[in-house]
């Protein structure tokens, strides 16, 4: 969980920083989108790096899902008879919603790829016109897309708030003070990620990007 998770968080941060280039205008953003295809050239043929990264990320996502499924199945087998009286788990909301939050995020990632990578579900959907695709996607008339995007990003935020701390613990974090630092850092990193990602659709909504 921890190893694949941290790999995915690394990607999320790189992706978020790339997204923020949209505030520098259409030309810069489209150029950035094109540049992604040229990473690694001339050592690698064009777009090879991109496909290697996609393969690594897919393996990480699958590994993450397999590990989560094993844990969930073991949990179900470890408690065959449920409690008649069971108050809410005292741990954080984030810790309680890891499994369903993960399912929401997976559904979102599938939609997101069909929307902005392949362009299938995008109203503009022209390859190379990254800026126009994003602007068309989050147009005020498509408020439901923005809503789904917002909910998914918030789900990612909650997932990371528990996940980041939990990963650090898995790697052996073991002092009470370090626990406070790890929890606080996980919260800050999750918040930064949520704000960074949500700034794009809301910039489209208020007309900063169009």
């Amino acid at each position, binding site marked *: 969980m921890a190893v694949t998770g941290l790999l995915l968080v690394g990607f999320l941060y790189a992706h978020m920083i790339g997204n923020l280039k949209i505030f520098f205008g259409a030309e810069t953003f489209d150029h950035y989108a094109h540049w992604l295809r040229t990473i690694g050239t001339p050592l690698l043929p064009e777009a090879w790096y991109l496909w290697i990264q996609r393969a690594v990320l897919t393996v990480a996502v699958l590994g993450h899902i397999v590990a989560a499924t094993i844990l969930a199945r073991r949990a179900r087998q470890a408690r065959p008879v449920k409690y*008649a009286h069971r108050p809410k788990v005292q741990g954080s909301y984030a810790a309680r919603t890891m499994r369903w939050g993960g399912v929401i995020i997976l559904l979102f990632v599938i939609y997101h790829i069909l929307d902005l990578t392949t362009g299938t579900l995008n109203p503009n959907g022209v390859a190379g016109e990254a800026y126009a695709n994003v602007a068309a996607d989050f147009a005020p008339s498509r408020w439901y897309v923005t809503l789904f995007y917002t909910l998914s990003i918030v789900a990612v935020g909650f997932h990371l708030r528990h996940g980041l701390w939990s990963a650090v613990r898995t*790697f052996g974090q073991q002092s009470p003070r370090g626990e406070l630092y790890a929890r606080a850092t996980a919260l800050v990193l999750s918040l930064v990620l949520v704000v960074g990602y949500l700034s794009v659709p809301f910039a489209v909504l208020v007309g900063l990007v169009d």
Partner: protein
Amino acid sequence: MDIQVRVWRQEGPSDGGRMVTYDVKDISPDASFLEMLDVLNEKLILDGDDPIAFDHDCREGICGACSMVIDGVAHGPEKATTACQLHMRHFKQGDTIDVEPWRAAAFPVIKDLVVNRGALDKIVAAGGYITAPTGAAPEAHATPVPKKDADLAFEAATCIGCGACVAACPNGSAMLFTAAKVAHLGLMPQGQPERDTRVIDMLQAQDDAGFGGCTNMGECSQVCPKGIPLHLIGRLNSDYRKAVRKSF
């Protein structure tokens, strides 16, 4: 005070079991939770009913026998308190209190609220020991132990093996128990020779016994009557990683 209790009744391991409601009248607020059950049992016996079976021994909060989930919380609503040290003054007149056994595949119900916690013994048998010769207590200054390590080892050693961590864990994991045992031996100089095999063998025994995996929810530490800290699980993970790396 007058209260109602809904208690899990199960005649034996093969019985399906059910929650049964009983009225308990004129209970002193200073009675412990187990004394309240004693009063109820006396009434049940006089009425010709089967008394409620529950585990108890010292009733001083140090043996770890009283295993019951009260209103959905292992050992009841008071922090760092075993069920025998929980007093009725923490409940209100007219309350309905749910009492259930520990729920875990590794802890099969024997009768009513009594479960078999032998799975924890299997984890201890797998590595909860040292091979140094024991006997009379050695001279205390012969083996220096840093104060910090001694304190943490002592804190971990206060685990009474009651199983509340398993009962509370949403994953039914015994990680806090295993972490406490691994830490209290692994922090001492006498525990070093088996430090690596201990953590690997005890975790293996835990998995084999049918406990779930840890996802760092932190429920265990919340209900632990001895307040075993959650960060010991990080120590267990660290020891495990180092032991696995050395085994290659």
